[in-house]
């Protein structure tokens, strides 16, 4: 408990003092910087084909060309440039899809957990329904119906992944609703809306924040999977998933076309896991108590 009392006045300092958070945020900021400055950083345009120089090895390997630092793919496109431009889709997905899923999931969770009764039953059955269907199959079906495009990918991820938020947050809301301070607020005349916003939402924030950061990694992988099977953004937009699919086809002639995008995806996922873990350790009061005793 003492750690809570000491650090509570400076929650931000506590969060930033956690190395996991620093590593996670650092890597994600790097990703955003790559996406923003892609035209200046990439040596070539992402779809520029050099058909005389296909499947080149990286620059340091024998036969490599210095103007293609990571080599080229089967169409003679610069792997490094495509890797850098791909961060644009990744960053947009990572910043929007988790927020959308959180908004939808939390709204339903608050309604279910706070109101209870039949509406809770209906929402919970919907969560059961969603969870008993493979997420990837649902996402693919949605993408067939919605047709390719960045916005549709985001919509599909939101419509598939809201249950992650709804399930966990509802459990929290049910606990919070029974707290004495909620009853006290009601007695002093606060409306339901005020109680939810002032007394319940702050209580779910620690869980919500770490869920969102985990969902960032999940949605990046989801997009990459949809790209991999050719069901994501328009075909001329480079993404890591498309690069993985292309790289797998020519893996014997140039393994770097596969290693580079897989490495980037794994690193991004690890960064978000790290961030989520760090945020949970530093923002969830239940965990302070446990480490304190």
């Amino acid at each position, binding site marked *: 408990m003492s750690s809570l009392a000491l650090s509570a006045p400076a929650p931000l300092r506590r969060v930033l003092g956690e190395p996991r958070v620093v590593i996670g945020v650092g890597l994600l900021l790097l990703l955003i910087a790559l996406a923003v400055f892609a035209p200046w950083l990439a040596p070539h345009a992402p779809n520029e084909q050099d058909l005389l120089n296909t499947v080149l090895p990286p620059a340091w390997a024998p036969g490599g060309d210095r103007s293609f630092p990571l080599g080229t793919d089967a169409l003679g496109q610069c792997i490094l440039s495509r890797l850098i431009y791909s961060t644009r889709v990744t960053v947009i997905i990572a910043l929007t899809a988790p927020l959308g899923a959180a908004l939808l999931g939390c709204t339903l969770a608050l309604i279910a957990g706070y109101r209870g009764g039949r509406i809770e039953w209906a929402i919970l059955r919907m969560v*059961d*329904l969603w*969870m*008993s*269907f*493979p*997420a*990837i*199959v649902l*996402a*693919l*079906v*949605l*993408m*067939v*119906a*919605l*047709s390719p495009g960045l916005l549709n990918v985001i919509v599909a*991820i939101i419509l*598939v*992944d809201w*249950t*992650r938020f709804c*399930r*966990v947050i509802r*459990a929290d809301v049910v606990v919070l609703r029974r707290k004495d301070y909620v009853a006290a607020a009601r007695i002093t005349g606060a409306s339901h809306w005020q109680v939810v916003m002032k007394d319940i939402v702050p209580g779910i924030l620690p*869980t919500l924040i*770490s*869920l969102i950061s*985990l*969902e960032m990694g*999940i*949605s990046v*992988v*989801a997009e*990459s*999977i949809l790209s*991999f*099977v*050719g*069901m994501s953004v328009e075909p001329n937009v480079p993404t890591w998933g498309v690069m*993985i699919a292309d790289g*797998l086809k020519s*893996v*014997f002639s140039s*393994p770097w076309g*596969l*290693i580079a995008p*897989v490495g980037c*995806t*794994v690193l991004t*996922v*690890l960064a978000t*896991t790290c961030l*989520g*873990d760090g945020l*949970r350790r530093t923002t*969830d009061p239940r965990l302070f108590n*446990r480490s304190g005793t």
Partner: protein
Amino acid sequence: MLTSPALSTPASPGRLNAIAGRSLAAMPTVWRILWRVPMLLALAALVFFVLRVLPADPMGMLLPPSATPADVKALTEALGLDKPIPVQFGIWLGNALHGDLGRTLTSGLQVTPLILKALPTTLQLIACGLLLGMVFGIGGGLLAFRYRGTRIERAVEVVNSISISVPEFLWAILLILGVGIGLKLLPFLGQLDAGLTVPNVTGFLLVDAVVAGDFAALWSALKHLALPAFALSLGIAPPLMRILHSSLLDAYTEDYVSAARLRGLSENRILVRHALKNAALPTVSMLGIQASTVIGGTLLIETIFGFPGIGSLMVNAIGAHDLPMIQGLALTYAVAVQAVNMVTDAVLLLLNPRLRTP
């Protein structure tokens, strides 16, 4: 999306237990089994409506740009698209109940036989992945528990965290890069070496190879199955290991363990006969919860490793906008998940006498 729902939950192991055990206490078993029927209907309806209502121009999706109005009319009538959508769903469902899922748009073949032909490959992959996943998960859980407080427990937990944080889609490709291309230890494309064929009897390649007595083919099939099954098991094992470990820790705080110890039973006997029997319950529930993740996982694993299962069928059907095929396969996936859940329900019923009272 890939990881099990429980993985994304930033929760203590105790809370994982609570989530896994939630449905158990809530409903009597018979109801939980009957409940799966309306669930399946709702899932079938969901997929049907998504595919029929969401597209702005379903005809444009199904036909090439050069199609004439006559083509559009013919296809509309052939698919029954001129009828109201609930009626369309009723017709489709009625046929589906008789095993008729319609004909594919690309080849005009019946959908049902195509799915049945591909299904054994997928089921074999699921079975091998589950087996490996359970061996790793239960083995890891027991190992970590038996050597609790030592470096072995730490090591198991580190391995667990690493395998949990990378989804199996990426594991599959990392395995191809590492084991398949780097070390050249195992093949990673198709089900058999080139030049080998096995007569199709059951559709399950391993079984067929044994039936034919062709052990070269069996060995080749096993080698080809190793990486895909391992990739699949990496998604199954970590949550199993975690929940078994924490359930064992919970079980050891119970009086019956102290009582068994006072009766002079050996530690191994207490672990296997008393604690494990109780800790098995949340572990089996967890397997049921993971069913949809595991079955969805096969779709990607099949695509990556070039296995001709229903996942490959699905990816091709999606690429070709083959609606009858997509609907049929989506139903197959939903049935598969519900079937696994029914099996886990039945196992729970066998293991836990407390559930048998209605």
